[in-house]
């Protein structure tokens, strides 16, 4: 390492100092008060041993979901996103030399379009929550109104993010209740909140309580002219009707489940799709199909006039760096599992959840499932002890428990949201049930 003297000499600079002569003395600092550098070997060793204390799903089955899920990832996904041509490239400003990532992202958009039944998909938002934030502001751009309806039962973090996105344009967030028996949305309450002022209505399928709402297919009638924003778990779309078929204007969702590890919740993948007619109002980068001068099919970033680097303060969003690599992972994942595989995974998730919720319900003192609706891969249960205490007990048994609901849905204090996916073997369920039984 060290400075290359020959370069200094060639440009007639006598020392590095000279190159920083424009930094006023008054703002200078004397180096960085950080430890000396380590060799690569030491760095890897240090981090490995620091993180060694993390409990991982390699050792402990995890029954926690709430937005991020432990799914199986085919090895080939890693193979593809480890291709350095992809992961060391920038946002493809020079399309001619970047057809690879452009096509991969266009294919991602196409996969999501197929899943959601929408025409226009962007090449990613940061995550499902910020996608929701941007969806709310887009609704406002669409119809100029300023009230946005969201479910009462929703992750508080997502709500908080949404409020921050709504703050700027002054959008008011209003909640509608859920049906305490089915876990579906309360159609009555929703209808009562509808008015001329409503800009958009947000629904989740499956919802935060794990329930697949049976009234959704006809939701359009209830919300009239308001924009319909649907939040999806893309894996569930292997079996569920695409929101495009029941009138969605915008579909958002968390795409982590499509081939990305949990990574303590980041990077994630914000899915954002809309109808063709709204395309110029949508946030985020989009890849379009085009041709080169030889008439060959080609791809490039397009509709950039919506974007910050051209429209500046009038842009539809400030997004610049997004989660492109996770979008490539999602495309690869979907291509690998394919049409039938995705449906199969969805079914296995439903089956696993159904069996687990029933078994939990058979344990003394546990109420499970709490809701009567159809479930995807999560369900609410009520344990005989405080959820936090239950999780501590489970952790001692090397099991990562569920999500206590008090913070998210205060009405459901004392309840817990459990998730199960295809990665759980019968033994994992059994072990979990044995550990639960110890507190019943």
């Amino acid at each position: 390492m060290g400075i290359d003297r020959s370069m200094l000499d060639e440009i007639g600079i006598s020392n590095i100092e000279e190159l920083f002569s424009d930094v006023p003395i008054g703002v200078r600092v004397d180096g960085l008060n950080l430890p000396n550098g380590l060799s690569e070997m030491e760095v890897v060793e240090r981090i490995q041993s620091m993180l060694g204390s993390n409990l991982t799903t390699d050792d402990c089955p995890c029954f926690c979901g709430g937005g991020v899920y432990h799914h199986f990832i085919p090895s080939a996904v890693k193979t593809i996103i480890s291709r350095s041509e992809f992961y060391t490239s920038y946002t493809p400003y020079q399309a001619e030399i970047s057809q690879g990532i452009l096509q991969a992202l266009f294919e991602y958009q196409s996969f999501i379009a197929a899943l959601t039944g929408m025409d226009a998909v962007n090449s990613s938002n940061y995550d499902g929550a910020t996608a929701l934030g941007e969806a709310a502001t887009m609704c406002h751009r669409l119809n100029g109104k300023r009230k946005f309806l969201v479910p009462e039962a929703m992750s508080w973090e997502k709500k908080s993010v949404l409020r921050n996105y709504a703050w700027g344009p002054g959008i008011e967030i209003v909640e509608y209740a859920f049906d305490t028996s089915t876990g579906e949305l309360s159609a009555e309450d929703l209808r009562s909140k509808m008015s001329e002022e409503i800009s958009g209505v947000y629904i989740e399928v499956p919802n935060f309580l794990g329930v697949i709402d049976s009234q959704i297919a006809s939701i359009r009638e209830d919300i009239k002219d308001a924009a319909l924003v649907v939040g999806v778990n893309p894996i569930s779309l292997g079996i569920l009707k695409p929101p495009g078929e029941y009138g969605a204007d915008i579909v958002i969702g968390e795409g982590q489940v499509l081939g990305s590890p949990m990574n303590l919740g980041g990077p994630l993948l914000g899915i954002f799709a809309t109808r063709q007619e709204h395309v110029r109002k949508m946030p985020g980068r989009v890849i379009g199909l085009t041709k080169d001068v030889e008439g060959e099919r080609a791809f490039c970033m397009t509709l950039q006039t919506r974007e910050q680097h051209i429209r500046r303060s009038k842009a539809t969003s400030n997004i610049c760096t997004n989660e492109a690599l996770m979008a490539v992972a999602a495309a690869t994942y979907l291509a690998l599992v394919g049409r039938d595989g995705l449906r199969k995974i969805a079914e296995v998730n439903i089956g696993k959840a159904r069996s687990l919720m029933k078994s939990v319900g058979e344990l003394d003192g546990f109420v499970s499932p709490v809701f009567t609706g159809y479930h995807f891969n999560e369900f609410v249960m009520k344990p005989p002890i405080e959820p936090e205490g239950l999780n501590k007990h489970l952790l001692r048994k090397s099991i990562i428990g569920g999500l206590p609901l008090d913070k998210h849905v205060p009405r459901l204090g004392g309840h817990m949201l459990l998730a199960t996916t295809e990665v759980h073997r019968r033994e994992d369920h059994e072990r979990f049930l044995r550990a639960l039984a110890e507190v019943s």
Partner: protein
Amino acid sequence: MYRQARYDRKMIFEKEGETDFAMPIQEELSDAVPKTMIRDRLEIPSLPEREVVKHYTNLSQMNFGVDNGFYPLGSCTMKYNPKYADTVSSLPAVANIHPYQAEDSIQGALQLMYELEKALCEIGGVEAVTLQPAAGAHGEFTGMLLAKAFFAHKGENRTEVVIPDTAHGTNPASAAMAGFNVTEVPSSATGCVDLDALQSAVSENTAAFMITNPNTLGIFEEDVQRIAEIVHGAGALLYYDGANLNAVMGWTNPGKMDFDIVHFNLHKTFATPHGGGGPGAGPVGVKKHIEPFLPVPRIVRKNGRFGLDYDRPDSIGKVRPFFGNFAVLVRAYSYILRMGGDGLKEASEKAVLSSNYMKEKLKGVFDLPFKDLRKHEFVISTKKLKEQKDVRALDVAKRLLDYGLHAPTIYFPSLVEEALMIEPTETETKETMDQYVDVLKKIADENPMLIRSAPHNTSARRIDEVYAAKEAILSWRSFKKKENERGDRPSEEDKGECTLCRSIVGDMDSLKKRIGRSVD
């Protein structure tokens, strides 16, 4: 001579084969989902792993990354990112942990984030850092919300944010998203902030002034102290866009320059490759007075254990669901460990040396507007080429691709005509920079026809962006719809080719005429 790979351009949707994906066997569910909600078809392919891997492997070869060569995209800091960062960020202890796990079960992760925050405090000269934002622009947005909360808390109603016209587009966009009115102030004749203009732009309505220093011309704002006086004098906050931190580490820092809020672009300075567009991470650092407003949770250390503090009444809440892009944070942490304080400083020094080295070698050939000394990047103008040969910056950029060299950022900042914004970074060798200089000089002498019709050696030739924008085809589904509307269906022979493109071949002739025929 360089030549990029080229494979068949079929879409994955056009490929054929039979899936070999399997799940463990399970009983059938007769009533998996409500009848009204069942899907009847899903139009995605079902292919064997072999075809999928081949497809994306070959696509990757039609993409150029830093690992393939020089990528001096100004403002983007496309340096080489060491591979140990890949190793540590994909450890099971990083990948396989759930964000809702109990604090006790993720002590290592919390410690890493805690220490990273501390290191960023030192690098940025700030007193607290949140790692939550997902990218630079997201950091800016967070910073703007912090400013908003700060003034709301003080009971002041400041509705404006002032930004230089040379600023990155995300700055005004982020301020606007947070609900501020944006005032852009023009630069002075030196390419720097015009102090008078700034003075008259700020008022008791101003919430913040956002700049990056060195600015997007690569020029260090020597008047930064005056700027701070003016801005703070008006009671406004000073926001530092840290995308250009790579230029000044160990020499100065935003805190020392009196900034109140700063965001870091970990994916520019700290060992995160750009992933073809992301993910990155955009932590935000603040001075003490802004700390109460930072997003929750804060990572705290108590009795040797690490915990999460949600009890922050003035916090803006959350800007994203969990802790930020953790896997990216691990990369940054490993990089800081590897480099150490001295190493980071040296990185900045080398980045600045590289930039000045290349600038010196090029300034005789192209115009270098404004002053001489630059930091990590510099902007030259190919105006003369345009005047003399009708060759635009865009053409030069495309021609560079033919040499296996990525183009610089072009047409930015907009106050330089026909701008090429070059950021060589510290990881490139003299040999590489010399080659780039030689090629640029060579291009300046090349047949304009050859340049205007470039690129010739990439997997696609010059691309029709107008068409893309006009048609706005963003998915295979939408492509198929348009195809049906137009009624031209692919015949057997040209399956896999874009009939849509063919059908508009007429439009293209004019385009071809304009750029000249291909000169391979």
